[in-house]
């Protein structure tokens, strides 16, 4: 097992390098321009000078090597320096990954935005799983019951209605008409006491609910299908014929086995939490990682797009390994040797 994990981690390194190259090539080849969104009153010659100052017109290879150097050498060294409070020689000349739009280090902005993304997307994901698993299991156990029918319908609606619609509907109902919740998310709010906690919960309510609806719908469909499969297995009949209580049959035998693929799914979707929710963040002005990526793409901000997408790629690769390893731990039929 340990050997397997190490082997997977080692083979991930070339994969990640290839991914970084492909992302860079795609982003660089796209025809967007960092000066494209500036007012037209800025003449083309000045735009040319801005691009030169940014290094946007450098050859592909130069830009790529520059980014590799900044991301894999300068950023880790800087991280070690700031966390341990020490200074390596040459620290003054080291250039971190700098965004073309803000002229600030990309990693700092990601770190600044991670809390709100994890709060909103993370808690909706957590809530989604907490609701989806029991709903899915019960729907499968009582297949075609009223609970199952209603649940299936609700989940189908949650799955098919896009978040930009539910988000807008929530704003009109809860912000405009009822005035219960704010429609503008205050990212500078810090929870220090009961009052600010209430405020935080209030502003989280709408984006979290919108996202939870979507996650729950997806997960519960999956849990239901998996549980249904297992309830029809021979070992369930065996368990029942042994005279075990219904509770033991369902909870110990059926559910535990049904959750194996669900856990994999959950692990595979964790990178999505870090990626944020592009649309929902935009609607409620949560301004997390998702919104940052959209702005960077629109603004032709290559270092930012490259860095953010690359971090996602690394997370996806990593959680794929985690899912595989978990599978081995949870399911005794799977062995890695």
């Amino acid at each position: 097992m340990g050997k397997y994990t190490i082997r997977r981690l080692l083979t991930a390194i070339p994969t990640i390098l290839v991914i970084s190259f492909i992302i860079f090539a795609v982003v660089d080849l796209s025809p967007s321009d960092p000066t494209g969104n500036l007012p037209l009153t800025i003449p083309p010659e000045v735009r040319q000078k801005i691009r030169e100052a940014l290094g946007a017109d450098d050859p592909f290879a130069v830009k790529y090597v520059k980014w590799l150097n900044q991301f894999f050498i300068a950023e880790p060294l800087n991280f070690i320096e700031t966390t341990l409070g020490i200074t390596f020689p040459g620290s003054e000349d080291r250039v971190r990954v700098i965004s073309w739009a803000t002229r600030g280090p990309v990693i700092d902005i990601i770190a600044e935005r991670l809390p709100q993304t994890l709060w909103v997307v993370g808690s909706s994901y957590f809530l989604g799983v907490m609701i989806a698993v029991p709903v899915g299991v019960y729907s499968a156990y009582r297949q075609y019951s009223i609970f199952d029918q209603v649940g299936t319908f609700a989940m189908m609606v949650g799955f098919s209605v896009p978040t930009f619609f539910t988000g807008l509907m929530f704003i009109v109902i809860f912000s405009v008409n009822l005035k219960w919740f704010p429609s503008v998310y205050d990212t500078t709010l810090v929870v220090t006491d009961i009052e600010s906690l209430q405020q935080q919960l209030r502003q989280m309510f709408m984006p979290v609910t919108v996202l939870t609806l979507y996650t729950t719908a997806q997960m519960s469909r999956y849990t239901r299908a998996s549980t249904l499969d297992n309830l029809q297995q021979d070992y369930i009949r065996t368990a029942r014929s042994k005279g075990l209580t219904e509770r033991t049959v369902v909870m110990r035998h059926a559910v535990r086995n049904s959750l194996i693929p669900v856990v994999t799914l959950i692990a595979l979707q964790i990178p999505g939490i870090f990626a944020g929710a592009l649309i929902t963040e935009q609607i409620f002005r949560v301004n997390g990682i998702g919104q940052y990526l959209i702005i960077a793409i629109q603004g032709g901000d290559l270092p930012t797009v490259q860095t953010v997408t690359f971090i996602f790629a690394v997370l996806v690769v990593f959680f794929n390994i985690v899912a595989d390893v978990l599978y081995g731990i949870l399911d005794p039929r799977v062995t890695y040797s």
Partner: protein
Amino acid sequence: MKTKLSLLLILVMVLSSVGGIGVAQDGDTVNILFWQAASSLNPYLSGGTKELEAASLVIEPLVRYDPDGVMVPWLVNEVPTLANGGVSEDLTSITWNLRDDILWSDGSAFTAHDVVFTGEYCMHPEGGCSTLNQFDGVESLEALDDRTVKITFTGPKPFPYGPFVGYFTPILQKAQFADCMGVASQECTDQNFAPIGTGPFMVEDFRPNDVVTYVRNPNYRDEGKPYFDRAVFKGGGDAESAARAVLETGEADYAWNLQISPAVLSAMEAAGQGTVVVAFATNVERLMVNHTNPDPALGENRSVWMADGSNGHPFLQVDAIWKAMSKAIDRNVIAEQLYGAGGIATCNVLPGPPIYASTNNDDCLVQDVEAANAMLDEAGIVDSDGDGLREYEGIPLQVSYQTSTNAVRQSTQALIKQWWSEIGIETELRNIDAAVFFGGDVASPDTYAKFYTDIEMYTNGSNGTDPETYMGNWRTTEITSPATGWLGSNVSRWYSEEYDALLDQMSQTGVLEERAALAIQMNDLLVQSGAMIPLVYRGSVSAHHNSVNGIAMNAWDAELWNVAEWTRS
């Protein structure tokens, strides 16, 4: 197993809740909503309107424009003119006398050296300063003493109010930015994110592309101002929800750039919580007419201008055709239905300030499809093969028409396509993402500068009240071509010796009335010879909550130019 997982998730959430900066919420805060967030607070490095606006609360120019486009002394005692001796007789220099009661927010004195430094900062060849064109023709800047700045130009400068006038060129503090010249400017993150200024507020916390929080500047020159203790400049979202936050939920006090469906906006305003405000400068949405041949079959010569006129457009240079196309458009419908309060139908490329606005072209304001058809029939441009399209010398009138991706623009395209079909012209519509369309990628065939279609639509305007630079966009030397990497601002590739002569004349003329007459002459020449078809005079549309007083919507300077005067009732 399940408990383990929950524990893991809880751990992730607890970890994520650590971080963030504490903010005390005392006093009254003005909440400003910009649906495009500011990415930097150094306007010299970004050039976008949102950054200029966000910075305008903190750093200030020597002179601002008021809503009527009149110069107001801000950090100086008076505006230098020929009459008061501030501008030299030969028009080659201007001398500014700074006020002596101005302090930076850190308490140090504001001096002439800061002004000179700001000019040198922007003019540094490697800095990539985005407002460099404000310093066009500047030869040198010198501080004659602590209070006096002299700017010398390379030649006569009839309008010497480029540098340090208006929100494009606010003054930076020399002490703070001294190490940020040239290449180093890119890495001065601390300075760019929190410039020290002379304005009513100072930066407390800046989160790029998200939110800026400001606090009152204790060293502000006017006692008792600003009224607000704090200001929050929140970004993100979209225009419609920004309008809703001010007009319907009252969560924000001010929302910027609300270009949304006029019907939706007026319904929101009817809720009675806030007011929509509009101001007009010089922006005109126009159809640019390609004067070169964009036929892909030409290969390298596609859309390339030849000095001998050999590569002209097959039919768009024919007066009857472009005039008929202009005549067939109902500009009032576009302005009222799509732009609402923020649009007025226009036939001019230079619609403001009022003294520069021509009245010689107003006949285009009335749509007349019949007259357009008659005009074409008369010129012998008829549908000879019965396919519903007119032909000019055997070439069917089919035009391609591109613009950037934007709901209002696509609606305009659809309307115009319909009107042109009524005069026997077929239109193929295209829309391109703004970052590509307005971008400078030489490899992309879709940029507005390459203009590989017959017609393209966008907005442009003058960068301030004086039209000289703007009118210079149609100079022959500004024609975009592959030889110059498609740099240049004459994208129609329209050319007139008479026009160039008028421009030269303007650069030698210092008297305002004469300059205005020349500008009108140039405007008329442009629109009467089909360099473009103007459509809509566009204003800026914003909204404020009714509890905030003192807002004076301004299109010539920052919208937030007088934030120090804002109060709450």
